[in-house]
């Protein structure tokens, strides 16, 4: 499934044209990206939470050469699925 399928589903569910549906779906993901960029988490009930986590810098190794390198501190995005989503994926809803 891609964004095009999401747009199609929105088009079928609402009275909006395909063009409008495409713009709206794009807008939803833009809003989510802006929010996460600000470091704010997103909680979607029944689906899951998107959380930005801070990672400290640490020593790592280049797995190819074995050289020790410094991995800088960084922010990463994690997704924690809700119990509801996990249950539906395991066929018990």
């Amino acid at each position: 499934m891609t964004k095009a399928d999401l747009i199609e589903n929105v088009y079928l569910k609402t009275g909006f044209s395909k063009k409008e549906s495409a713009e709206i779906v794009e807008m939803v993901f833009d809003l989510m990206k802006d929010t996460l960029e600000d470091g704010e988490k997103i909680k979607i009930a029944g689906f899951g939470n998107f959380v930005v986590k801070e990672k400290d810098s640490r020593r790592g190794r280049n797995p190819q050469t074995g050289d020790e390198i410094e991995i800088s501190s960084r922010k990463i995005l994690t997704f924690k699925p809700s119990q509801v989503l996990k249950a539906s994926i395991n066929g018990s809803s």
Partner: protein
Amino acid sequence: MTKSELIERLSLSADVLNKKDAEVIVNTIFDSIGDALAQGDRVEIRGFGSFTVRQRDAREARNPKSGEIVSIPSKKTPFFKTGKELRHRVNCID
């Protein structure tokens, strides 16, 4: 941001949308992704990320309270891989 705040922000940023429409749209998006994953499908949203289903093998674990060995059956779990654009934006790289 919660789902209702996302709905609120969506209806504010698109003047064609009332709150009811925004709610239907946001619910359609997440329901569609959930349904696709329940069917074992992979969902890819360019610029955002992709959702896949990963299989976890059955394993033996211990109940930390009683120390009893319990067998945990294999199960599937949703997995999200952040897209390149979003990964860079979250980490403040342009």
